[in-house]
């Protein structure tokens, strides 16, 4: 099969042709900001994976003799009120933050994408029902919805992920539904229906691949948002609970020592900014490179 016919074939199946994918990958690589974002995320992933190697020992074990120390060779970012190394807790905190980001986005994807697909593809009463629920959820600002859910579900890592995950579901539903609504009118979908292809096959083979681009962009931006929300809940004392080294919780405890030891609250904040910045830069770059509206 020639390159053109291959491209044509993949286009009719609703996937991006290989040459286009290559062009968009090249565009993404040329985007320095996105590259920087990707590198930042990669660094955090490596830090999270190598945490026990980078910081041997427990990040939560207190050592009151060394409380609130400034930077030193032993503790490059100083220690907190319980004498624990701030660097060590930031290193282990990257595990928690990445875990939350992945958990939240997976939750949003697993519930939001199928509902969005069904809502956009079937329309009618199903769509009406799903959209009214979505409207209600979107009537609350995301963080507030997560806050309300935490109030009901209770504090802790699992409930933090579930609460923020639920608050992300309507975003995915809206995004996927919008795409599915337009794709269902495409000739190849109509053709697939005409030859008797089952709805589930049409949804998975023809519609879902076309929604992957906006989903990928939203996933990157959503991970950044999840880290921010989780840190916010941790800061308020209703997210991940101490002694788990979560960045927001660390900031919250550092607040009490702001006047004498501002370093306790400063460094976890920098870690949050860098991680969220990484996901936001990558998300922006992905949108520029992959979104057809910004096509080369």
């Amino acid at each position, binding site marked *: 099969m020639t390159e053109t016919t291959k491209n044509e074939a993949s286009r009719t199946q609703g996937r991006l042709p290989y040459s286009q994918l290559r062009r968009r990958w090249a565009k993404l690589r040329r985007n320095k900001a996105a590259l920087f974002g990707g590198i930042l995320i990669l660094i955090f992933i490596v830090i999270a994976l190598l945490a026990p190697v980078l910081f041997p020992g427990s990040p939560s074990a207190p050592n009151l003799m060394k409380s609130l120390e400034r930077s030193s060779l032993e503790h490059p970012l100083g220690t907190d009120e319980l004498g624990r190394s701030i660097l060590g807790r930031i290193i282990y905190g990257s595990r928690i933050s990445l875990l939350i980001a992945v958990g939240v986005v997976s939750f949003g994807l697993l519930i939001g994408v199928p509902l969005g697909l069904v809502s956009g593809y079937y329309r009618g009463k199903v769509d009406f029902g799903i959209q009214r629920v979505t409207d209600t959820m979107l009537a*609350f600002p995301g963080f*507030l919805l997560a806050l309300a859910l935490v109030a009901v579900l*209770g504090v802790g890592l699992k409930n933090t992920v579930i609460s923020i995950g639920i608050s992300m579901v309507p975003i995915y539903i809206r995004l996927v539904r919008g795409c599915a609504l337009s794709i269902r009118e495409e000739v190849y979908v109509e053709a697939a229906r005409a030859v008797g292809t089952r709805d589930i096959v049409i949804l998975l083979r023809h519609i879902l691949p076309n929604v992957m681009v906006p989903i990928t962009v939203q996933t990157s931006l959503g991970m950044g948002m999840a880290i921010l929300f989780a840190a916010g809940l941790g*800061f*308020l004392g209703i997210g991940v609970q101490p002694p788990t080294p979560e960045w927001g919780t660390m900031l919250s405890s550092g*607040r009490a020592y*702001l006047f004498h030891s501002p370093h306790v609250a400063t460094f976890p904040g920098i870690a949050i900014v860098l991680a*969220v910045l990484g996901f*936001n830069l990558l998300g922006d770059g992905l949108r520029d490179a992959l979104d057809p509206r910004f096509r080369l």
Partner: protein
Amino acid sequence: MLQYVIKRLLSTIPVLIGISLLLFFMLRMLPGDPAQVLAGQMATPDEVELIRHQLGLDRPVHVQYAFFLGRLARFDLGRSARTQNPVTEEIWARLPNTMLLAVVAITLACLFGIPAGIISAVRPYTWIDYVVTSTAIFGISMPVFWLGLMLVVVFAVWLQWLPAGGTGSWRHVILPSFTLAAFVVAFIARMTRSSMIEVLSQDYTTTARSKGLKEQVVVIKHALKNALIPIITVIGLQFGMLLGGAVLTETVFAWPGVGRLIVDSILARDYPMIQGAILVFGLLYILVNLVVDLLYAYVDPRIRYD
């Protein structure tokens, strides 16, 4: 126009019903007996029974919902489990504080964000554009509560120019409102930039330039007016983020607003208060977006609501 306003107001009814259902089931989702939770651990069985009866929890679910809606329509949100004061009274006392912060923050965000976005769009891909876009992405990535803490360290601890928290004078408003504005300003600057870049490449802008109009007139009178709709939309949507941000900012600066009330209520498991405060924030958000919708017609006369 009036017809549109009425239509738009009516369209909020399903959302309001949805919100009421959400709040109604929120209390029912609580682990254990809601009456026991509201009465507290020390309550006697008689007290728990009284609360159950007062809340109508001893009736069928649909009757309970009707009862709940009836109270809601009379703005009766119950009494705080913590202070025993009426929920509406406490929210009403704190709402002006939150609104003051929100209005000052959104004004600051517009004052900084719109000009920054315009400058960035007029000189795209120059150093000034890079400064604006980089600052904006930093602003979006920054936790609002961390920024608040850092502003306290610099302006209250090191320089000692401003108070670290509390209320009382205009000086107390500066740090919390700047903190709250930082996040929103970034979004407004980004949206203004992209919207202006699009408008500046339109034929009518070229026509305005070719007529020999001054660049300022082209940018402000011809381009900005046409770029305003997405900017207004983003301001409306950001108001929601502002309410979420208010919860954190009010905590950092010990600001006695509704946001702080929500956090205190969650920590004290004061469910009637959480319900009430979240309902008020939800209503505010709907109302602001309704105003934004109506502003479209004012900004763009081509939009006719019939």
